[in-house]
């Protein structure tokens, strides 16, 4: 029995959309759930017979009030921003010249070195955190945000060097050569010509550095002990969860606020992220 082509096409289309719908549901549901829970009253949340998908009691802003005024959440956001800005500064200072050197100056051995630098990105914090915790103690940085400022570039520099190398490689050599003929040194041409036209790449590096800092968990958990020094990714799960009572509403609000805005921003840069991951390895 022949299936009419129109029907077959419609089924294929429906299947395709259904598949995408399922994946999207799986990915986004926890964030949707955070958002719903944020505005629910605790008495509504903690009644098993209530339909959890709807507001059985009127929505409330109480959870947000608690989060912002009765917890250290705002301070954690501030700490995260403080560490993030400083790490961005250190990372750019070291990774921009390094990326340029790998793209233009170092030739064959530079290629090997570049792959070597990238591989250090794969060395996990779970292998290093034990000696690191002692080194941090020896430096007197225990429980200080400066310990994070010191350690986070260990993974942001490799990643951003690699990413920026790809950017610099894509810039036509003629531009620098023209600048050098005009009397600039090689380094002068880099500062005056290459950096200004690489701002998009540098912005990408900044965004990725900030998201990597926001996501980091293991080092912050290891080095920081006082609640007021936490970053947001550690403060919320350790301090808000491991109290005696779970304030699910405030907890979910804290998770949502620290996750979704960054994700939206990041979405604009994700294609560059992919080429950062695969450049050089795959042509």
């Amino acid at each position: 029995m022949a299936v009419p082509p129109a029907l077959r096409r419609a089924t294929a289309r429906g299947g395709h959309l259904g598949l995408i719908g399922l994946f999207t549901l799986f990915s986004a549901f926890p964030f949707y759930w955070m958002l719903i829970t944020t505005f629910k009253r605790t008495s509504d949340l903690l009644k098993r017979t209530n339909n959890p998908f709807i507001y059985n009691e009127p929505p409330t802003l109480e959870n947000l009030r608690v989060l912002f005024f009765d917890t250290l959440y705002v301070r954690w956001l501030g700490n995260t921003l403080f560490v993030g800005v400083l790490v961005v500064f250190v990372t750019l200072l070291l990774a921009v010249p390094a990326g340029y050197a790998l793209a233009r100056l170092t030739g064959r051995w530079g290629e090997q070195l570049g792959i070597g630098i990238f591989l250090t990105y794969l060395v996990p914090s779970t292998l290093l955190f034990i000696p690191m915790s002692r080194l941090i103690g020896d430096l007197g940085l225990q429980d200080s945000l400066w310990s994070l400022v010191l350690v986070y570039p260990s993974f942001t520099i490799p990643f951003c060097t690699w990413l920026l190398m790809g950017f610099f490689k894509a810039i036509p050599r003629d531009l620098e050569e023209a600048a050098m003929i005009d009397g600039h040194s090689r380094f002068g041409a880099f500062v005056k010509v290459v950096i200004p036209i690489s701002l998009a790449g540098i912005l990408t590096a900044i965004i990725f550095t900030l998201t990597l800092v926001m996501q980091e968990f293991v080092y912050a958990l290891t080095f920081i002990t006082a609640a007021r020094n936490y970053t947001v990714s550690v403060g919320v799960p350790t301090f808000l969860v491991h109290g005696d009572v779970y304030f699910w509403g405030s907890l979910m609000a804290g998770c949502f606020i620290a996750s979704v805005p960054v994700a939206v921003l990041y979405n604009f840069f994700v294609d560059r992220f992919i080429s950062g991951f695969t450049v050089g390895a795959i042509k």
Partner: protein
Amino acid sequence: MSARTTTGEPEPRAAAGPRALASLLDSPRWLGVLMIGPAVLYIVLVVGLPFVLAILYAFSGVTMGSRTIEFVGLKNFINVLGTAKFQTSLRNTFVFAIVAQVLVMVLGTVLAIALLKDFRGKWLVRLLILLPWVAPISLGTIGWLWILDSTYSVINWTLEALGLIRADGWLMWLGVPYLAMGSVIAIHVWRILPLATVILLGGLTSIPHDIHDAAQVDGASFGRHLFQITLPLIRPIMLVAGLFGLVFAFTDMIVIFVLTRGGPYDTTQVLASLAFFTGIQAGDLAEGAAIALFLFPLLLAVAVAFLRVARRAEVT
């Protein structure tokens, strides 16, 4: 370092001092070393040094309080290997990482192929699918902690509403051994899937259109097209995605730390989380380092595989 020393005037090489600097800044060789040196130095100090120490600690008797390093040979490894906790964790690490990564690759390939086609609202779908990867892992995982809560789980509520379980038959997603392992694997897949998908999608979009057109003209079936043309062409990029995912899966402890803390009865304990609990929380740096060091051979294997892929791509 001044960039202006040689700039500006048509006859730049005037004074002797600036000339030395100028030739340094103009020689690609030396400038290259100067520009990359600081980054390399930083990485050596902040990754290389702790890495060497991690190995030293594993062969020593160092604890949180002790000030000196005294070597004890293989004692830590022997101690560690003998414990049931370690053996369970080692087995769990492999089960967790391999099952999760196989699922990630299969689902990632399916999703990437589905996303290849254009449809309305694709940008929004992509944003939503990326969320788990971009959001701080610990925070996304807390979302799941609430979804899987023993008393108020929305999944249980839905299953009961659909008549699949009874009111007294609610599942303890994180409290029963096999179910807990299934849950942490599912949530790890949830988090890594976006990364694998976008990498694979990058590979798929780089295949020239003519190849697909030619296959269509030749009348290749969907299955043949997929298994004999598309997948072989993106094999190198699949390898990259697979290797990265494997490293993340083997070395991650965040999902497990937030959801189960290794419980119930260590059935979800993995090497990374065990190293944390032993080395940091219990203060036995040496034994913790020995446990963490078991991650190293695996990383080495992945690094070698990655280098081989990189080299092959360079040759062709």
